């Protein structure tokens, strides 16, 4: 009986693990984890005795192993994760007939503004949407873990600043905010005859990555 006060001594990884066993451990860890596992987490499985390139190779092999199945291994913002392939959805939906809630346009627009303009205050969102943003809307997004309060703008009232989370990205299968669909260029929303103007406005936008933030002194 080893004392509970002393962690059991485990043999060095390379004493006991060949590549196949290593992959098996990786696979198991990824199969049990709901959250994506970043490389540094995966390395912990082997007491950090695996280097990144070996790890990446093994993960690629795992990805290929699962190529022809109902689940796939993907990299998202938070790391590596298994999830189901779209073609499985019709079958799986039969198991859970209750559909996940669909978000209202108000929620989606609020989320979009936060995603593209972050960090923003509720006032910023209201400015763009032209209507008040109710607390339940923000709470819905916070409860989903997609946005969180990251601070306060240093203006009277110190309004809360919201930003999207890593979970937002990984839940949408994205690795970074840059992978969000690009915003429709303002110019293309305008008729052709206004093309020149539109392009100007476009250039203005490009030269100033976040021009709209200037609305918020």
């Amino acid at each position, binding site marked *: 009986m080893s004392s*509970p*006060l002393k962690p059991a001594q485990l043999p060095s990884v390379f004493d006991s693990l060949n590549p196949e066993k290593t992959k098996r451990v990786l696979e*198991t860890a*990824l*199969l*049990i*984890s*709901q959250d994506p596992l970043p490389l540094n987490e995966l390395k912990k499985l082997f007491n950090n005795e695996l280097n990144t390139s070996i790890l990446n190779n093994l993960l690629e092999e795992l990805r290929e192993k699962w190529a022809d199945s109902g*689940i796939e291994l993907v990299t998202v913002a938070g790391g590596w*994760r*298994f*999830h*189901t*392939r*779209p073609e499985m*959805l019709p079958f*799986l939906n039969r198991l859970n007939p209750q*559909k*996940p809630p*669909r*978000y209202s*346009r*108000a929620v*989606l*627009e609020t*989320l*979009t*503004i936060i*995603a*593209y303009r972050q960090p923003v205050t509720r006032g910023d969102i209201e400015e*763009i*949407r*032209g*209507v*008040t943003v109710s607390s339940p809307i923000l709470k819905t997004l916070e409860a989903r873990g997609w946005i969180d309060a990251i601070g306060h703008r240093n203006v009277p009232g110190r309004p809360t600043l919201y930003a999207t989370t890593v979970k937002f990205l*990984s*839940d*949408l*299968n*994205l690795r970074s905010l840059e992978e*969000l*669909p690009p*915003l*429709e260029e*303002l110019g293309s*929303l*305008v*008729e052709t*005859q*206004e093309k020149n*103007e539109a392009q100007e406005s476009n250039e203005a936008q490009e030269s100033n990555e976040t021009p*709209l933030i200037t609305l918020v002194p």
Partner: protein
Amino acid sequence: MTQVIDSVDKDPVAKICGEPLMEIPHDLYIPPDALEVFLDTFQGPLDLLLYLIRKHNLEIRDIPMAELTRQYMAYVETMRVDQLELAAEYLLMTALLIEIKSRMLLPKPAKNTEEEIDPRAELVRRLLEYEQIKLAALRLNELPHAERDFSFVQVWIEKKTDQEPPHVHLDDLRNAWITLISRANVNRHHQVTRETLSVRAHMSHILRYLRDNEAVEFYDFFSPSANVAEVIVIFLALLELAKETLVEITQSKVFGMIYVKPIETSATT
């Protein structure tokens, strides 16, 4: 209410940017009983304006303010009847539209500056910005969403044992004791010695033994294999128990058998 809408319908839509518009698309008509649907349909004044502009193919960069304002007000009137609170934002926009319209009617001042600011510019900017977000929201919604479009793989972790109970290290006890002593500024340290501890340990031991045995002969507490120190400690423990009236030590006759009984037993019988 229908009068208002009728008046809109009958209004000659006439010309927009010089082009005649034959009729207002019938989806401008909002039946009163569909008000809730209407409210759900539009996210706010900007959304409604965008709808009107896009539906009627108005030039967003050259908005016919009179036309837009008239159509917009027809909707807002519909809403005012029931949903005054919500209409507030819409009413604010009405005021803005009228203001822009009137500023456009003002005679243009002598050209002082080359860049004359169009009174509609700010509204157009807001409309375009909102439309940009609106479209982005649609596309965002089309991205695969966890739970809606795919599920996470989540295999059960089989653990042999349940949650491990908390570990307690001897240092934890030591630290707890230090805390207690430094907190309680009382004279009870004299009981805090090793000697006392072993006595008290034996007190527990004796009491536990008595719990299962009604009366124990005094000598039975002293094992023949016990060394002197142990005998002393056991004896002290018995005396201490007697002092704390935890046990009763009885002797029925002189030089007779001495019995140790737990007090509770004697008390209940």
